[in-house]
């Protein structure tokens, strides 16, 4: 087997379909780390814990995003109008609504004031504060499951939004 190893690989002349399939793959990431694990290059925490934390963080940010977006729409405001009315940077508002990263404390405070909800609860949702608030988690899940990205708020979305606002008031 040894002598064969460095013969050039035989690739077919026409790989068009394979290339088309490769470039259309959803390559969020393709990194493999067997060697990295052996050489101690991985995150020190167990992979399962990293997976769980990333998923929980992503879920909370998505919930915050949906909450802010639905609240703004319930007010009948575009992002720009909302940003102007409540003196929030429009780019930072869009970042929250698209769940791009953890919002700055200042922006969360402005949003909590604009929407009249608890700043502390928004800190937890955004990941600034770690809290084992089971009720918040449960209600966030219920809220996320009851709302969707529609142009106008449905009856169910309106109800889900109001229920969640109550939780964020507490």
């Amino acid at each position, binding site marked *: 087997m040894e002598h064969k190893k460095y013969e050039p690989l*035989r690739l077919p002349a026409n790989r068009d379909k394979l*290339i088309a399939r*490769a470039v259309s793959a959803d*390559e969020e990431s393709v*990194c*493999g780390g067997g060697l990295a694990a052996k050489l101690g290059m991985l995150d020190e925490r167990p*992979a399962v814990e990293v997976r769980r934390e*990333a998923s929980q963080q992503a879920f909370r940010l998505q919930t915050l995003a949906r909450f802010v977006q639905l609240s703004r729409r319930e007010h009948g405001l575009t992002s720009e109008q909302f940003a102007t009315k409540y003196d929030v940077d429009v780019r930072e508002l869009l970042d929250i609504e698209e769940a*791009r990263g953890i919002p700055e404390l200042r922006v969360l405070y402005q949003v909590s004031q604009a929407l009249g909800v608890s700043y502390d609860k928004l800190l937890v949702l955004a990941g600034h504060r770690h809290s084992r608030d089971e009720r918040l988690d449960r209600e966030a899940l219920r809220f996320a499951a009851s709302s969707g990205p529609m142009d106008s708020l449905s009856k169910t979305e309106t109800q889900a939004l109001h229920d969640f606002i109550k939780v964020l008031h507490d």
Partner: protein
Amino acid sequence: MSTHSTKLKRGATGDLVDAELDDALDLDDLFDAAKQWAPEKIEMTRELVNRNVPKSMWPQSLHWNWAKKAVELKPRAPGPLSAHRLFGISAEGKWQGLLLARCVGSQTRIAPGGRDLVYIELIETAPWNFPVPQTGRDALFKGVGGQLIELAIRWSDELSLQGRVGLHSLPQSEPFYRGHCGMRDFGPDPSYQNLCYFELDEVHARRYLEET
């Protein structure tokens, strides 16, 4: 070095651009790639910190630097008498992704019998090919990972290992191996810091290559 022409897709425009697959690289190429990628990794880290992206959502290979592991890599140096082979894909004068595989020492976990397979020790794409939705960054080029995996399958096939390949995936990459590659997920492997082990069997390998 043995090269083959191919294409990658530019993420921003969807255009196909010329690229090259290399199937016999050496450790210097790996270090060259690490040197090309390091400034971009630093820039990406700065962007992630400035945008307050939680660390749990950062690309999980962002801190890898193979040059720092040169001593440990030396015994794995690819070459005519080595069990290791390094594959790469380049475009616009830069390495877009690399894959280091070995052809001895790993057996299939799918069926008993101890049949050998090609084990992928590392696969990494250039940092500019990591999409990071939290910062609005799309991959510069797409199609890197799928074509590197193709080379590993072809090597396995040419060694009469019927295209069998195995690897341990970073958590973020698991959907790619499960979905695009059709690999079987064996779950967390305690001997590899609980990374999930994935394996491609002969049938799925054949299917992968039949896309040509």
